[in-house]
């Protein structure tokens, strides 16, 4: 089977996106030889802790936190790579990875290592645009793998199993709803930090996607350094999530394509 490495956020959502009768995580496990760096497992725990309450509130999951943790543990334990990635980390040098998270860097390094050891072409699933672009640069240079996004994976399984268009459609919409939830959480936090909350003149800028203007306005606000930094980060996160190349845009484009396709 083809080796497959999955980024933490993409994997976290894969457990709750049904594609036909199976979850995306189960389909991936059945069709690929999944390998996960230890860092990814640690990241998943942290992100799940933050996200679970919002998921529950929005009805995106019904399982309790502990149950999801148990499912994650059972799924990830046999796939965890505990080896040293030092050598592989050095082998991806030359490409600027500093702006990526530790989990994403570990995934890219592991992909390079597996490809070398097993002479195989690794699939790397990530919904982070920057991580995907860095990985592509390295994978193209060393011809060691390919980068795909969750929406591509859903579409692939949908076509592979000849699912009804409505089922693939529903899976893509569920994926989008997780990231819409992230977007809403970012807006909520920004709203809570802005002086005057929703009444702040900056909030409409963020809401309307006028993020450059929002950032300029935040600089002028009389805020303490920590709040200003957090607000700026939030605006950048909104920008990353809503930009032309973001996971949301990509998933919507897949959804629109699917509407046009005659499967």
């Amino acid at each position: 089977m083809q080796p497959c490495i999955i980024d933490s956020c993409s994997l976290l959502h894969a457990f709750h996106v049904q594609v036909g009768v199976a979850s995306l995580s189960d389909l991936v496990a059945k069709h690929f030889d999944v390998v996960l760096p230890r860092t990814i497992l640690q990241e998943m725990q942290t992100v799940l802790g933050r996200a679970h309450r919002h998921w529950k509130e929005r009805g995106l999951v019904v399982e309790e936190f502990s149950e999801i943790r148990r499912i994650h543990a059972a799924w990830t334990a046999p796939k965890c790579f505990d080896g040293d990635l030092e050598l592989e980390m050095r082998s991806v040098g030359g490409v600027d990875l500093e702006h990526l998270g530790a989990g994403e860097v570990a995934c890219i390094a592991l992909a390079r290592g597996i490809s070398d050891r097993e002479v195989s072409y690794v699939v790397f699933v990530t919904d982070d645009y920057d991580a995907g672009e860095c990985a592509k640069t390295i994978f193209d240079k060393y011809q060691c793998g390919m980068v795909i996004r969750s929406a591509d994976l859903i579409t692939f399984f949908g076509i592979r199993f000849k699912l009804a268009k409505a089922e693939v459609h529903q899976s893509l919409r569920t994926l989008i709803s997780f990231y819409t939830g992230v977007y809403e959480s970012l807006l909520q936090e920004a709203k809570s930090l802005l002086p005057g909350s929703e009444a702040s003149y900056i909030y409409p800028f963020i809401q309307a996607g006028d993020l450059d203007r929002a950032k300029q306005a935040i600089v002028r606000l009389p805020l303490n350094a920590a709040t200003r930094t957090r607000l700026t980060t939030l605006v950048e996160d909104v920008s990353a999530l809503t930009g032309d190349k973001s996971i949301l845009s990509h998933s919507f484009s897949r959804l629109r394509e699917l509407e046009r396709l005659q499967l």
Partner: protein
Amino acid sequence: MDYSKLNLADNPFTATPISGRPVWCGMQKLKADLERRLQISLRTSPSSIILNWGNYGSGKTHAAKFFTSDLTLQDAMAAAGLPAPPLAFYIGFPRVDRGAAFNLTSSIIGKFGVADFASKLQQTKTTLDAVSVGLFANLLQEYCDDSELQKIFHKLVQGDPNDQDKIGRVLFGNSSSADLRELQISRKPDSVADLCRLVTTAFNLFTYRSAQILPLHPAIHLWIDEFEDIASLSGKEQDALAAYLRNLIDWCPRYMTMFLNFTLTPVQSLQDLGLYLGDAVTSRIRHRIEFAEPDKPELKAYVREMLNAPGVRQQPAAEGDAFAPFDATAVDLIVDSVSPRTPRRVNDVFSSYLDIAAETDGMVRITESIVRQFAADIGLTL
């Protein structure tokens, strides 16, 4: 805050109107468009969906509240020469703790209250049976072909006060086995179809009319706000809600108009709504109303009307000084600079200047220089 030195009873640019009645200021073209749709709904029979769309703060929620207020409905009734006002609901987007379709039904029935819901059904039964004995039962049979759901309606019109709480629990999905046994109902209405059937049966009965019978309500207006939140539901919930809306229109094919308020976001365009609702619902959207940014004359008219709305001024404004306490040049400067040019943002800006004037000693006019002085604090780029 005391605004008396500015000849104002209160700050008119706050969220809640001073008079307690929703007021409509400026943007007459938009108002006329909405009124025309409402009048069409009162004069024609096919049910339809109207999509109200625009940017954040463009006035969609205000429009929903304005056009569902009792006084506005009375005016609509008078304008159409009808004996009764339409039945209008303003509903926030249904959250999903118990399913979006379930919460939507609960919101609709909750707007009536069980007692009022029962009372309207009793009124309808009295009217129908006065013309033809058994007509109510026949219509109930026609609109609701499920015998267990029919029993709920029969219990409601019987009006036994001892049953009211139990029926309430059945309608809101909290009934126990004991409640069902005592009411002699064999099952709870719990599927999306059941919930929709309850609502549409009631709507059909309330709007029933014939040569001898006037309807209890000439039309039903259902406004659902923040419909863009459909994107945050899971795929299954989205489909359930879309099916519910489709059934609502199919099973209540006449006299119902559904207004969906949709805010554009960076991640959702208007076309994407079709991805969530599917062809069956999208094809029933008869009209789209854009809540566009008002142009400068419209914005000035809006500000002028807000400042002179009933109950706002302590004394009428002097002739030629309709923007008081703002100088006309100050208003021009703000209107030229405000961005985004939405009612919400305009309210924020004018409200902030009024607050500054109210809390600054000796400041009784808001001049162009004062606008310039505080522009940066308020986020105006002049």
